[in-house]
Protein backbone atom coordinates (compact mmCIF):
# COMPACT_ATOMS: atom_id res chain seq x y z
CA UNK A 1 0.00 0.00 0.00
CA UNK A 2 1.07 3.55 -0.69
CA UNK A 3 -0.09 5.78 2.07
CA UNK A 4 0.23 9.37 3.17
CA UNK A 5 -1.40 11.87 5.42
CA UNK A 6 -2.49 15.00 3.65
CA UNK A 7 -3.46 18.43 4.95
CA UNK A 8 -5.04 21.23 2.96
CA UNK A 9 -4.69 24.94 3.58
CA UNK A 10 -6.07 28.02 1.96
CA UNK A 11 -3.33 30.55 1.32
CA UNK A 12 -3.05 33.68 -0.78
CA UNK A 13 -0.10 34.36 -3.03
CA UNK A 14 1.38 36.42 -5.82
CA UNK A 15 2.14 34.14 -8.77
CA UNK A 16 4.14 35.01 -11.87
CA UNK A 17 3.31 33.08 -15.05
CA UNK A 18 5.12 33.02 -18.38
CA UNK A 19 3.01 34.72 -21.05
CA UNK A 20 4.28 32.38 -23.74
CA UNK A 21 4.18 28.88 -22.25
CA UNK A 22 1.97 29.40 -19.15
CA UNK A 23 4.53 27.92 -16.76
CA UNK A 24 4.85 29.27 -13.23
CA UNK A 25 7.96 31.43 -12.92
CA UNK A 26 7.67 32.43 -9.29
CA UNK A 27 5.34 32.19 -6.31
CA UNK A 28 5.38 34.43 -3.26
CA UNK A 29 2.88 33.03 -0.74
CA UNK A 30 1.42 35.16 2.00
CA UNK A 31 1.85 34.48 5.71
CA UNK A 32 -1.73 33.59 6.59
CA UNK A 33 -2.73 29.93 6.42
CA UNK A 34 -6.24 28.68 6.96
CA UNK A 35 -6.93 24.91 7.24
CA UNK A 36 -9.45 23.47 4.81
CA UNK A 37 -11.23 20.41 6.17
CA UNK A 38 -12.15 17.71 3.69
CA UNK A 39 -13.83 14.45 4.65
CA UNK A 40 -13.43 10.90 3.30
CA UNK A 41 -16.83 11.30 1.61
CA UNK A 42 -15.46 14.21 -0.44
CA UNK A 43 -12.67 12.03 -1.78
CA UNK A 44 -14.75 8.92 -2.36
CA UNK A 45 -17.06 11.00 -4.53
CA UNK A 46 -14.03 11.91 -6.65
CA UNK A 47 -12.65 8.37 -6.63
CA UNK A 48 -16.03 7.04 -7.74
CA UNK A 49 -15.88 9.26 -10.79
CA UNK A 50 -12.25 8.34 -11.50
CA UNK A 51 -12.28 4.61 -10.87
CA UNK A 52 -15.74 3.27 -11.64
CA UNK A 53 -16.57 1.83 -15.04
CA UNK A 54 -19.60 0.13 -16.51
CA UNK A 55 -19.04 -3.62 -16.53
CA UNK A 56 -22.51 -4.28 -17.93
CA UNK A 57 -21.38 -3.19 -21.38
CA UNK A 58 -20.31 -5.91 -23.79
CA UNK A 59 -16.53 -5.75 -24.25
CA UNK A 60 -16.39 -3.13 -21.51
CA UNK A 61 -12.59 -3.34 -21.43
CA UNK A 62 -12.53 -1.59 -24.79
CA UNK A 63 -14.40 1.42 -23.45
CA UNK A 64 -12.70 4.64 -22.50
CA UNK A 65 -13.73 4.54 -18.83
CA UNK A 66 -12.05 1.16 -18.38
CA UNK A 67 -8.99 2.21 -20.35
CA UNK A 68 -8.75 5.30 -18.14
CA UNK A 69 -9.00 3.14 -15.01
CA UNK A 70 -6.34 0.76 -16.35
CA UNK A 71 -4.05 3.71 -17.07
CA UNK A 72 -4.32 4.95 -13.50
CA UNK A 73 -3.83 1.40 -12.21
CA UNK A 74 -0.63 1.09 -14.26
CA UNK A 75 0.45 4.55 -13.16
CA UNK A 76 0.46 3.37 -9.58
CA UNK A 77 3.51 1.29 -10.37
CA UNK A 78 2.13 -2.23 -10.48
CA UNK A 79 4.68 -3.20 -13.10
CA UNK A 80 7.62 -2.27 -10.90
CA UNK A 81 9.35 -5.00 -8.94
CA UNK A 82 7.39 -5.67 -5.77
CA UNK A 83 8.82 -4.23 -2.59
CA UNK A 84 11.45 -2.02 -4.16
CA UNK A 85 11.95 1.50 -2.89
CA UNK A 86 11.66 2.78 -6.47
CA UNK A 87 8.19 1.28 -6.78
CA UNK A 88 7.14 2.77 -3.46
CA UNK A 89 8.40 6.24 -4.40
CA UNK A 90 6.85 6.01 -7.87
CA UNK A 91 3.46 4.98 -6.48
CA UNK A 92 3.60 7.54 -3.70
CA UNK A 93 4.35 10.37 -6.11
CA UNK A 94 1.46 9.27 -8.32
CA UNK A 95 -0.86 9.15 -5.32
CA UNK A 96 0.17 12.68 -4.33
CA UNK A 97 -0.60 13.85 -7.85
CA UNK A 98 -4.03 12.23 -7.72
CA UNK A 99 -4.83 13.95 -4.43
CA UNK A 100 -3.48 17.35 -5.43
CA UNK A 101 -5.19 17.33 -8.81
CA UNK A 102 -8.46 16.22 -7.29
CA UNK A 103 -8.77 19.39 -5.25
CA UNK A 104 -6.79 21.92 -7.22
CA UNK A 105 -8.18 21.10 -10.65
CA UNK A 106 -11.75 20.09 -9.89
CA UNK A 107 -12.44 22.64 -7.17
CA UNK A 108 -11.67 25.92 -8.83
CA UNK A 109 -13.66 28.94 -9.83
CA UNK A 110 -13.73 28.06 -13.51
CA UNK A 111 -15.35 24.66 -12.95
CA UNK A 112 -17.63 25.73 -10.12
CA UNK A 113 -21.36 25.97 -10.51
CA UNK A 114 -21.96 28.60 -7.86
CA UNK A 115 -21.26 32.31 -7.77
CA UNK A 116 -17.64 33.37 -7.47
CA UNK A 117 -16.42 33.96 -3.91
CA UNK A 118 -16.01 37.61 -3.03
CA UNK A 119 -12.34 37.26 -2.05
CA UNK A 120 -10.90 36.09 -5.34
CA UNK A 121 -7.81 37.84 -6.63
CA UNK A 122 -8.76 41.02 -8.45
CA UNK A 123 -5.53 42.26 -9.98
CA UNK A 124 -3.11 41.07 -12.63
CA UNK A 125 -0.44 42.83 -14.61
CA UNK A 126 2.24 42.15 -17.17
CA UNK A 127 5.90 42.48 -16.28
CA UNK A 128 9.42 41.99 -17.50
CA UNK A 129 11.44 39.22 -15.94
CA UNK A 130 14.29 40.19 -13.65
CA UNK A 131 16.69 38.35 -11.40
CA UNK A 132 17.16 38.67 -7.70
CA UNK A 133 20.88 38.58 -6.88
Amino acid sequence: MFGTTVSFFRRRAMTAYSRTNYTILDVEPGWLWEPVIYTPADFFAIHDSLFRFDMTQTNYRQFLDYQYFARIWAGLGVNWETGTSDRRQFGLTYLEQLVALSVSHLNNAAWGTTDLPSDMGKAASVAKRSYRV
Partner: protein
Amino acid sequence: MNCSSYFCPGGLPLISLVNQSNFALPLEYYPDAEAVLQWDAPGYQIEFDSTIDGLELSLNDCTVYGDSKIAIVSCVRQLNSSLIIGIVPTEVFT
Protein backbone atom coordinates in the same frame (compact mmCIF):
# COMPACT_ATOMS: atom_id res chain seq x y z
CA MET B 1 10.40 11.86 7.94
CA ASN B 2 9.25 12.04 4.32
CA CYS B 3 7.27 15.22 3.78
CA SER B 4 6.47 17.27 0.74
CA SER B 5 4.55 20.48 0.34
CA TYR B 6 3.06 22.10 -2.74
CA PHE B 7 1.37 25.37 -3.49
CA CYS B 8 -1.28 25.24 -6.22
CA PRO B 9 -2.18 28.75 -7.33
CA GLY B 10 -4.44 27.72 -10.18
CA GLY B 11 -3.31 28.38 -13.69
CA LEU B 12 -2.92 31.27 -16.04
CA PRO B 13 -5.85 30.14 -18.23
CA LEU B 14 -8.12 30.39 -15.18
CA ILE B 15 -7.55 34.08 -14.80
CA SER B 16 -10.46 35.95 -16.29
CA LEU B 17 -11.45 39.54 -16.36
CA VAL B 18 -14.50 40.94 -14.62
CA ASN B 19 -16.52 40.67 -17.81
CA GLN B 20 -15.43 36.99 -18.14
CA SER B 21 -13.35 37.77 -21.20
CA ASN B 22 -10.05 36.04 -21.71
CA PHE B 23 -7.20 37.11 -19.46
CA ALA B 24 -4.57 36.91 -22.13
CA LEU B 25 -3.40 40.15 -23.54
CA PRO B 26 -2.35 39.41 -27.10
CA LEU B 27 1.42 39.20 -27.27
CA GLU B 28 1.53 42.16 -29.64
CA TYR B 29 0.54 44.33 -26.68
CA TYR B 30 3.50 45.02 -24.39
CA PRO B 31 5.72 42.57 -26.34
CA ASP B 32 8.63 43.13 -23.97
CA ALA B 33 6.67 41.81 -21.02
CA GLU B 34 7.39 38.14 -20.49
CA ALA B 35 5.25 37.48 -17.44
CA VAL B 36 1.76 37.91 -16.07
CA LEU B 37 1.60 38.63 -12.35
CA GLN B 38 -1.48 37.46 -10.51
CA TRP B 39 -1.71 39.49 -7.32
CA ASP B 40 -3.01 38.31 -3.95
CA ALA B 41 -5.16 35.42 -5.11
CA PRO B 42 -6.24 32.34 -3.12
CA GLY B 43 -4.64 28.96 -3.72
CA TYR B 44 -4.15 25.58 -2.12
CA GLN B 45 -1.23 24.69 0.09
CA ILE B 46 -1.16 20.88 0.16
CA GLU B 47 1.14 19.03 2.55
CA PHE B 48 1.93 15.32 2.46
CA ASP B 49 3.63 13.20 5.10
CA SER B 50 4.26 9.59 4.14
CA THR B 51 5.58 8.72 7.58
CA ILE B 52 2.44 6.87 8.55
CA ASP B 53 3.90 4.29 10.94
CA GLY B 54 1.37 3.56 13.67
CA LEU B 55 -1.58 4.89 11.68
CA GLU B 56 -4.13 2.26 10.79
CA LEU B 57 -6.80 1.92 8.16
CA SER B 58 -9.61 -0.60 8.42
CA LEU B 59 -11.76 -2.22 5.77
CA ASN B 60 -14.51 0.24 6.69
CA ASP B 61 -12.26 3.02 5.37
CA CYS B 62 -11.82 1.37 1.99
CA THR B 63 -13.61 0.89 -1.31
CA VAL B 64 -12.57 -1.61 -3.98
CA TYR B 65 -12.74 -0.63 -7.64
CA GLY B 66 -12.02 -2.89 -10.58
CA ASP B 67 -12.95 -6.19 -12.14
CA SER B 68 -11.70 -9.77 -12.16
CA LYS B 69 -8.40 -8.72 -13.71
CA ILE B 70 -7.18 -5.51 -12.10
CA ALA B 71 -8.33 -3.60 -9.05
CA ILE B 72 -7.56 -0.55 -6.95
CA VAL B 73 -8.31 -0.49 -3.24
CA SER B 74 -8.80 3.11 -2.12
CA CYS B 75 -8.83 3.98 1.59
CA VAL B 76 -9.48 7.37 3.20
CA ARG B 77 -9.81 8.15 6.91
CA GLN B 78 -10.15 11.40 8.83
CA LEU B 79 -7.29 12.26 11.18
CA ASN B 80 -8.15 15.50 12.97
CA SER B 81 -8.05 18.18 10.27
CA SER B 82 -6.07 15.91 7.91
CA LEU B 83 -6.81 12.77 5.94
CA ILE B 84 -4.99 9.46 5.78
CA ILE B 85 -5.11 8.27 2.19
CA GLY B 86 -3.92 4.84 1.11
CA ILE B 87 -4.17 3.10 -2.20
CA VAL B 88 -3.38 -0.46 -3.30
CA PRO B 89 -3.20 -1.42 -6.97
CA THR B 90 -3.66 -5.19 -7.27
CA GLU B 91 -3.55 -7.73 -10.03
CA VAL B 92 -5.99 -10.60 -9.79
CA PHE B 93 -4.59 -13.95 -10.85
CA THR B 94 -7.16 -16.50 -11.92
